[in-house]
C-alpha cells in the first residue's frame, strides 16, 4: 500500500467529531473496529484495481450501514398516533417496528432504521430517488406506507453489495461515471438492478415494439434502457453514464472506461503551464 493511500485513510480515522458524535461513537463499539476491517478491505480492493473514489464511497456506505445498530439510540421514537405494528425484512434482517400509520417506508428506513442510503427527493412520486426493491419489485418508498409492508422483503441500496464486494451494477456506475452529485444514485441503482430481472422475465416497456409475442431474456437497446429508467430523474444529467453502466451489466459485454483520475505529474505540468501563462 502506498503512502498516498495511508494519508487518505488517516483522514477517515482521525475525523474531527462534535461532542454528540463522540458520544454516539462511544455507544457504538462496532465503529471502533471499522478502521481495521476497512483497511484490510481497502488493501484487497486496491489490489483489485478499484478506484480511490469507489473506496471512499464504500467506506461511507459502511459507516451508514453500521449505524443501523444504533437504532433507538439515535432517534428516540415520539408518541405515535394510530400506531401500527409491522414486521418486515430489510436487507435480510428481520425488523419489528411500531409506528404511526402515516409513516412512509422511506421515512421508516431513514428516520427509524438509520438506513439513509435511500434518498428523499420530491417525496411525491415524481423523481425516483426513493426507489427500493420490495418483494423483488422496484417501488417508490415515498408513496408506500410502512404499515402495508407487513411480512415483506425490502432491499435498499445498502443491501446491494455482498459484504465488501460491490454489486456489479454499483461497480459499473463508478466505471462509467453514472453520477455526479450522487443524490439520485441509490434510487438509480435499485431501479437498474430490478430492471435486469424485468428484462430476464421478458417484461415489456413503452419502447417495446412487438407486444403480442413474449420472449424471455430480452436484449435491451439504449432506447429501451432509457424508457425503462425514466422513473429516475438525474438533475446532474448523468444519463449517458447510467445507460452505459446498465448496458454493460445487462449485456455482460465489457466496455472501456472513458475517464481516469489525473496523475500528480499531470497536475504539476498544468501548474507549470499556468505560471508560464502568468508571466506572459
Amino acid at each position, binding site marked *: 500500500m502506498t503512502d498516498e493511500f495511508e494519508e487518505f485513510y488517516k483522514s477517515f480515522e482521525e475525523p474531527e467529531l462534535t461532542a454528540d458524535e463522540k458520544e454516539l461513537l462511544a455507544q457504538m463499539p462496532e465503529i471502533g473496529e471499522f478502521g481495521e476491517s476497512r483497511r484490510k478491505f481497502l488493501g484487497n480492493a486496491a489490489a483489485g484495481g478499484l478506484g480511490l473514489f469507489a473506496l471512499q464511497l464504500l467506506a461511507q456506505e459502511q459507516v451508514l450501514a453500521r449505524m443501523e445498530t444504533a437504532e433507538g439510540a439515535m432517534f428516540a421514537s415520539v408518541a405515535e398516533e394510530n400506531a401500527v405494528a409491522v414486521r418486515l425484512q430489510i436487507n435480510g434482517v428481520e425488523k419489528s417496528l411500531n409506528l404511526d400509520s402515516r409513516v412512509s417506508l422511506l421515512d421508516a428506513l431513514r428516520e427509524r432504521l438509520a438506513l439513509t442510503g435511500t434518498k428523499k427527493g420530491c417525496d411525491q412520486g415524481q423523481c425516483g430517488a426513493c*426507489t427500493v426493491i420490495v418483494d423483488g419489485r422496484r417501488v417508490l418508498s415515498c*408513496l408506500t406506507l410502512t404499515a402495508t409492508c407487513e411480512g415483506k422483503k425490502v432491499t435498499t441500496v445498502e443491501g446491494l453489495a455482498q459484504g465488501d464486494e460491490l454489486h456489479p451494477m454499483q461497480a459499473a456506475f463508478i466505471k462509467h461515471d453514472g453520477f455526479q452529485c450522487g443524490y439520485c444514485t441509490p434510487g438509480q441503482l435499485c431501479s437498474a438492478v430490478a430492471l435486469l430481472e424485468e428484462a430476464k422475465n421478458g417484461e415489456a416497456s413503452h419502447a417495446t415494439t412487438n407486444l*403480442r409475442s413474449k420472449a424471455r431474456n430480452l436484449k435491451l437497446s439504449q432506447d429501451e434502457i432509457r424508457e425503462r429508467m425514466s422513473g429516475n430523474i438525474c438533475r446532474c444529467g448523468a444519463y449517458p453514464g447510467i445507460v452505459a453502466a446498465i448496458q454493460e451489466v445487462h449485456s455482460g459485454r465489457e466496455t472501456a472506461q472513458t475517464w481516469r483520475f489525473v496523475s500528480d505529474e499531470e497536475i504539476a505540468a498544468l501548474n507549470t503551464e499556468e505560471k508560464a501563462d502568468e508571466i506572459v
Partner: protein
Amino acid sequence: MKSFKYTRSTDAASAIQAVSANKDAKFLAGGTNLIDLMKEYVERPNELVDITRLNLAQINSVKGGVSIGALAKNTDTANHPLVRQNFPLLSQAILAGASAQLRNMATNGGNLMQRTRCQYFYDVAMPCNKREPGTGCGALEGLNRIHAIFGYSEKCVATYPGDMANALYALDAIVRIKSANGQERTIPVQDFHRLPGDTPEKDNNLQHGELIIAIELPKNNFADKSYYLKVRDRASYAFALVSVAVALEVKNNQIKQARIVLGSVAHKPWRSTEAENALVGKSANDETFQQAAQIAMKGAKPLAHNTYKIELGKRAIVLALQKAMNGGAA
C-alpha cells in the same frame, strides 16, 4: 398528512363493510395517487382499509373474454400473456403511463379511480369545486393549458389524466363492482366516469363503500390493428397533453369496426362514436382518417390556453390510425 386509522383487510366483504360504515374511510390499494393526495391534504380520510391482500389479483379467461382482477398490478396486467396476445392496446396504454416503479405499485382498480392532475385541484390554497365544492374553479379563467376541450362545465374544466382507461373505453370493458349489501353489479366502462356538470366532486358513479373487483374485456377482433399514441411534454414519465386509443377491424382494406378514444381532453376518456361511424364501411386510407379526425374534434371548445389540443388531437388520431394499420401494438 391527516392522522388516520389503518386496518388490514383479508376479505372483500369486511373491507366493504368497514368503508361503508365510515363516510370518511377509503380503500387503500397501490396508494400511488391516494397517498400523494393525502400528503397534500387534498384527500383527508380518517380511516384507510388496506385491501392489497384481498384475493382479487387474478387475470384469467372467462366466458366471452378475459377478466383482470381489480388488484392485479398494472405491470402484471400489461405483461400477462392473455392481455398482450388479445388486447395489446391495453398493454400499450398501461406501459405509456407513469414509471416502472409506479406501475409495479398501482392496481387496475386504483388506476380507474385516479383523480385529475389539475394544478388547482392539487393546490389547497386555490379555489376548486372538485376539492371543495362551492369555492369556484381556478382553472376556468386561470392557467388551463392541460385542461378540457370537451364536456366541461362552468364548475370544472379538469381532465381525467389516465392512460389505461382510454384503452378500456376502446375495448368496451365492463367494470365489476361489489356493493355493501353483498350484491355484485356491472357498469360498462363508458358509464363509469362522469362529466363534471354541477357535481365535479364526483369523478365516477361508484357509491361510497362500493369496491371494484374486476374489469372484464370482451373478445374482439382488434388485436391486429390497434394503437395507443400519447403526446406529452417529455418522452416518458409525464401525463398526456392529448392521447388517442384507436382500434380497427379491417377486411380487404375495408373497415368493419373502429374505435377512437381521446385522453386528457375531458373529465373522462372521450370516445367519438361519430368519428368511428365515419370510418366504418370505408377503405382504410389517409383521406378517410383525416375525415374521421375532423369529425372527432368537431365540438371542441378550447379554453384560453389549450386551443393547440384541437390540431394536436386531429394529427394524433390520423397518426394513431396509420400506426394501427401498420401493425400498431401488435
